[in-house]
């Protein structure tokens, strides 16, 4: 039922879910994830197809692309984040949607990104999907470890405080702009390097990869999975990426069912599937 190909997509979904979750953990509704995802993917597509028509690429080159994508998205996030993070709530959401659109239109119209058709024949570091499973799974594991370890850190604690009450956080001396910007940059970097992996895996890249639809889908990962622990968006990303594929036997009805899950999830699990209460009951994990 779940083959390696689907598993890769599920893991990439979980990574994007984490990217949306990061600013949200600091109380910021940012939908900018697809923009940075698109930047990472386009960068990888351009670099790996430039001046060579080989169908394979070394893993080291991919890691190098990820590093470059991390730097580029971090720089872009810093530049955009400083003015944009002054906005709150729905206004921040709208500004980040605008960013997604700007990046999409830019990729569509730049002379070297292949227009609507995009870039083809992106070389592969792995010959079989299983290689991607290990690679992206490894990245997800590292991210999970980071999130778990940093739970007790000052940064994550300040993020939780800002989510509850930004003004009170400021009055407690927390440099809220710095904390929010850190979360935003980390989110961008994660989306960027996920984009690099996705571009190689998909073999082709175009402007549609980072559209408004993706913003909504990745937001649904966090809403359904739960936004109170990093496990929520991971679970949401895995489930909601798998669902349309698993429902393939029922034909077009699957889109209706998918919509129904997104609709009914918040009705029955208003806090998402992973709640602090659930984690407490599981004991070992701390929310």
């Amino acid at each position, binding site marked *: 039922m779940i083959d390696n190909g689907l598993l890769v997509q599920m893991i990439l979904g979980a990574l994007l879910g984490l990217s949306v979750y990061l600013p949200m953990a600091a109380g910021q509704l940012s939908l900018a994830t697809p923009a940075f995802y698109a930047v990472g993917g386009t960068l990888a597509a351009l670099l790996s197809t430039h001046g060579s028509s080989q169908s394979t690429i070394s893993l080291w080159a991919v890691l190098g692309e990820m590093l470059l994508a991390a730097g580029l998205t971090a720089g872009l996030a810093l530049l955009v984040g400083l003015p944009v993070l002054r906005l709150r709530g729905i206004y921040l959401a709208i500004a980040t949607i605008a960013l997604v659109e700007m990046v999409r239109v830019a990729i569509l119209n730049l002379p070297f990104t292949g227009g609507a058709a995009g870039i083809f024949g992106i070389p592969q570091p792995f010959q079989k999907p299983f290689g991607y499973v290990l690679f992206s799974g490894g990245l997800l594991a590292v991210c999970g470890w980071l999130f778990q370890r940093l739970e007790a*850190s000052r940064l994550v604690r300040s993020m*939780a405080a800002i989510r509850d*009450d930004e*003004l009170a956080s400021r009055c407690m001396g927390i440099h809220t702009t710095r904390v929010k910007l850190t979360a935003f940059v980390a989110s961008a970097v994660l989306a960027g390097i996920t984009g690099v992996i996705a571009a190689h895996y998909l073999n082709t890249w175009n402007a549609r990869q980072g559209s408004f639809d993706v913003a909504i889908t990745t937001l649904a990962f966090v809403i359904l999975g739960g936004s109170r622990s990093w496990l929520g968006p991971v679970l949401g990303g895995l489930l909601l990426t798998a669902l349309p594929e698993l429902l393939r036997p029922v034909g077009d009805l699957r889109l209706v069912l998918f919509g129904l899950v997104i609709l009914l999830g918040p009705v029955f699990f208003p806090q998402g599937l992973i709640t602090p209460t659930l984690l407490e009951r599981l004991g070992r994990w701390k929310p």
Partner: protein
Amino acid sequence: MTITATATPLLELRQISRQFGGLHALSEVSFQVKEGEIFGLIGPNGAGKTTLFNLLSGVTPASSGTIHWRGQAMQGLSPDRHNRLGIARTFQNLRLFTGLSVLENVLVALHRQPQGNGLDALLNSPRFQRHQSALRERALQLLDELGLVDQAHRQASGLAYGDRRRLEIARALATAPALLLLDEPAAGMNPREKEQLCELLAQLRQRHQLTLVVIEHHVSLLMQLCQRLAVLDFGRLIAVGIPEQIQRDPRVIEAYLGSSR
């Protein structure tokens, strides 16, 4: 604690005004707060007391006039800068981190204490663990002082009203302030709790070498607690002085006590 008249006041307001559109919330308010004293701020509803606190904590800027901290003008500083200078506050309408536990509320506010760097946190190094247990100990000690230690692991939203007010004080104290601004700390407390709070504040002042500015509607509590008081009425300062003076001041009686009785 002796207060010398020549020393620079800890806090000095010079001709502070604040308008909201056409509303003069504060008009040319000037007074000084000396190091170590408990200073009361009273006035009828809408007199501008909370607005004044918002100015003192950097939440809203003054329309005109300056506020001096240890002789230095604080102008255009953000709330977090105010806190780092040593000014902490509580909120009249309670702004706890309700999603966090009581302990975490205090831990958040201890963010300037040594924590170990990010790498220490990642590796869960002995140094990080040492810092973490020191932080917890400090937080628990503060909670103990405020009588909240047995509720440390409850979620802040589940606390009783009086306990929430005390948690606000614990959280503000965790930022190691020199000046603590308390906005109606006794609101919603019963007479016995108010009595206890009075003693507690006096103790805290001693132990943490604090200067306190307290807004309170319960006038007799303030008369008992404070060395000096200021009275606001419609944004104007109508009297400053020791409790005995304030009680006898005809303008205060007219504006505050007289008109409401």
